[in-house]
């Protein structure tokens, strides 16, 4: 049912944000034709902007749509693991990211592949990292697109428009074009600026939901009673508590996702755009505010159960929370909430495509296609790549079933986690032989993808070798163990048979630099 009021409110906020994106191009102006400026905003973001930017690109349609949907449809294992996941990610960042920021600042690296190339002296390994970063980001961008699609459908916008026999998703196309246009014109500045507005909108939405819905439903006690009843009705598919068999899956989903998050190009981009190591550290104490929001939003999936919501027709469990918002709130507020969710998906989609574009430009285009490209040409290629990659993401939505859309993100996690030995362990040691790392990576990626497929496009799989079967685990986790074991066994072996190690161009002091040169920061901050 098309809802005029909701739609009007939605459009107003959407336009407001679009205008902001274009204004952002002029904010703290730098030469956007240089990739350092377009893609890292000149590395001069302070604590607050970094907080909004990281929050904006880590808490996404994953938080608003995928996790609540998993809670609604399957319960604790598939949804609630996201809480330990987003708790454990911060101690990991606190330890690793200052080092990463430091070496990248010191050596002028823009991507993890740049770092790996410098650390292990291997072009093929750098290529593998870049390729993984780009491919793993696509399903994650796809998840964001899907979030926008669901919000628009919840407003009652007809989803398909037939043009010459082709079914075109018109609203999605418009949103996509707006996003693409301002990402193209203002680079990382656009999403950072929008992130602030988006977060304010999201926090308002969340607070209103938490104040209104539980009291309408008779408190959390009543909500969890309804959840128990759902488990009693479908004891094999829906769980309020972990069954003993699910322990391993729950733990590995949480730990695997936590380790994977800061290997994604977009997370690293946001870290690198901050102006000092301390900004990064400070943020590990501030970002959990978002994790709390994620946890509370996850519970909206349970609220939808207690409210006996019938999910929005074509979206299955993913349509539960949008239907809950429609059912419990006046249409003007529903319009506001859907605008918040859509923009909450646009921001990360934009940062993700910028980050993946940086990877393509620096580590594939400049490396293999045109090594002599000027900085200006580099920037222009990155802008075009960001556009093309967004189309790539759309293909994922079209061809992979969206029933449990959280699997999009988890698939990205399987792929990106395999870069951990080179990137994270590389921050500590150059002990590994580059070829050993490459083989570990390759085996992890190939087997991981096969297992994901065998599991029925799901991310938890029981590996059986001969008669021995391991407990069901997140594939990313089992594969990173295999990957590491291979890298550790093959390194001494390859050294012995004479496969040459690469030379490490970084110096031990590179990993401990305090901040960006103060001259650069001070001047620009005033301007």
């Amino acid at each position: 049912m098309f809802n005029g009021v909701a739609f009007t409110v939605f459009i107003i906020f959407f336009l407001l944000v679009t205008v902001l994106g274009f204004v952002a191009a002029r904010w703290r102006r730098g030469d956007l034709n240089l990739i350092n400026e377009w893609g890292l905003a000149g590395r001069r973001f302070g604590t607050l902007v970094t907080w909004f930017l990281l929050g904006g690109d880590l808490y996404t349609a994953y938080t608003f749509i995928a996790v609540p949907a998993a809670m609604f449809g399957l319960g604790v294992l598939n949804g609630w693991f996201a809480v330990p996941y987003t708790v454990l990610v911060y101690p990991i960042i606190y330890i690793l990211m200052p080092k990463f920021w430091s070496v990248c600042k010191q050596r002028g690296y823009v991507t993890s592949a740049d770092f790996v190339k410098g650390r292990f002296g291997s072009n093929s390994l750098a290529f593998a990292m870049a390729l993984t970063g780009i491919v793993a980001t696509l399903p994650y961008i796809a998840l964001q697109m899907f979030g926008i699609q669901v919000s628009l459908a919840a407003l009652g916008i007809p989803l398909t428009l037939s043009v010459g026999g082709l079914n075109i998703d018109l609203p999605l196309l418009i949103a996509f074009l707006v996003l693409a246009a301002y990402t193209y014109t203002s680079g990382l500045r656009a999403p950072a600026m929008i992130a602030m507005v988006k977060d304010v909108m999201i926090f308002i939405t969340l607070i209103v939901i938490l104040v209104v819905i539980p009291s309408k439903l008779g408190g959390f006690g009543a909500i969890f009673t309804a959840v128990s009843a759902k488990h009693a009705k479908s004891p094999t598919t829906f769980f309020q508590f972990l069954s003993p068999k699910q322990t391993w899956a729950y733990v590995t989903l949480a730990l695997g996702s936590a380790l994977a998050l800061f290997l994604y190009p977009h997370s690293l981009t946001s870290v690198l755009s901050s102006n000092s190591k301390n900004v990064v550290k400070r943020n590990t104490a501030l970002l959990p505010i978002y994790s709390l929001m994620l946890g509370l939003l996850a519970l909206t999936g349970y609220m939808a159960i207690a409210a006996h919501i019938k999910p929005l027709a074509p979206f299955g469990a993913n349509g539960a929370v949008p239907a809950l918002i429609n059912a419990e709130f006046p249409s003007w507020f529903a319009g506001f909430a859907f605008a918040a969710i859509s923009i909450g998906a646009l921001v990360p989609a934009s940062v993700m495509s910028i980050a993946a574009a940086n990877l393509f430009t620096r580590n594939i285009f400049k490396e293999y296609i045109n090594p002599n490209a000027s900085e200006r040409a580099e920037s222009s290629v990155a802008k075009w790549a960001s556009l093309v990659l967004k189309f790539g993401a759309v293909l994922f939505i079209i061809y992979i079933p969206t029933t449990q859309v959280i699997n999009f993100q988890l698939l990205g996690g399987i792929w990106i986690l395999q870069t951990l030995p080179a990137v994270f362990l590389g921050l500590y040691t150059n002990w590994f032989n580059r070829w050993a790392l490459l083989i570990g990576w390759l085996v992890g990626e190939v087997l991981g993808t096969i297992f994901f497929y065998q599991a029925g496009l799901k991310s938890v799989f029981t590996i059986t070798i001969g008669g021995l079967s391991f407990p069901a685990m997140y594939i990313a986790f089992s594969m990173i163990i295999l990957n590491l074991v291979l890298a550790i066994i093959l390194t001494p072996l390859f050294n012995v048979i004479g496969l040459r190690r690469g030379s490490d161009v970084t110096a031990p002091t590179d990993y401990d630099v305090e901040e960006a040169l103060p001259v650069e920061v001070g001047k620009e901050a005033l301007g």
Partner: protein
Amino acid sequence: MSSQPQTQPQRRGRSWLRIFLLIPFIALLYPPFYNTANPTFIGMPFLYWYSLLWIIITAIITAVLYFLGA
């Protein structure tokens, strides 16, 4: 670069404090310990509010470490 030599020894001296960052891992990665309904809090089973509580505790741990310069 020039301020590095002064700040480094102090930070190095306190980096052992980072061992406290292991606490959340121990608290959350053994679910049998908290996978229960009781005690409840504002109607939420233990599993749920315990997990949420660790978001806050972990944030406090990292904040304290940051201020101590670890």
